[in-house]
């Protein structure tokens, strides 16, 4: 299956792009996506411990199971206000 990953702020700078399409096997979790991303964009590793993940506008943990065509947002801690 295939998910679209959106990067924001320092995560976008580290990824060098604002989005990537990633192929994953059926039943993959955000943790699996994270491992795939770190292989593909090694500079993300330096902030990997701080990244937050959201699917369909909701924060999700690394255990969250992804579905085909999900849009996953990947970003560092927020600093609005």
């Amino acid at each position, binding site marked *: 299956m295939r998910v679209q990953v959106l990067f924001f*702020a320092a995560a976008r700078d580290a990824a060098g792009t604002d989005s990537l399409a990633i192929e994953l096997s059926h039943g993959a979790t955000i943790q699996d996506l994270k491992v795939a991303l770190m292989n593909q964009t090694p500079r993300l590793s330096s*902030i990997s411990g701080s990244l937050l993940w959201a699917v369909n506008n909701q*924060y999700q943990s690394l255990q969250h199971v992804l579905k085909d065509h999900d849009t996953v947002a990947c970003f560092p801690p*927020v600093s609005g206000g």
Partner: protein
Amino acid sequence: MIQLVTDPIDYSAVTESVRSNDAGAVILFLGTVREFTRNEQTSWLEYEAYDEMAIASMAQLEAEARSRFPVKEVAIVHRKGRMDLGEISVAIAVSSPHRADAYEAGRWLIDTLKERVPIWKKEHYSDGREEWQHPGMTPVAGSDSSATPKLPAEKGEAR
């Protein structure tokens, strides 16, 4: 009123949107661009948002504030893009029959917005440096830690 805007925030419009004959108190909070943080001098700020989720998240804040506090009306307007010194990055207005509730709801809204809403601030310092602000971010030099930071509290979790 829940908005993510690029033009300067009209805080009078934000305030008017919460006024009501049922309210005895209105609280308006403005976040503004401060020149000095410790010894560092800011020239300007840049705010980036994940628009779709930021708007959904601010709407959820309003719903949650209404369930937690006896508020009459809530308005949250955040600006994105470049902001110069003194400009307003966020305006939050709350009305309530009594002032204690308006103060508590307003305080909860800005505190929670800063934890949850996917908007990021980049400092542009007077010495030319630029730096994303990421509270609590701990770069893990050279190691792909599988740790994940605590998720921002969602609706229904501990206060």
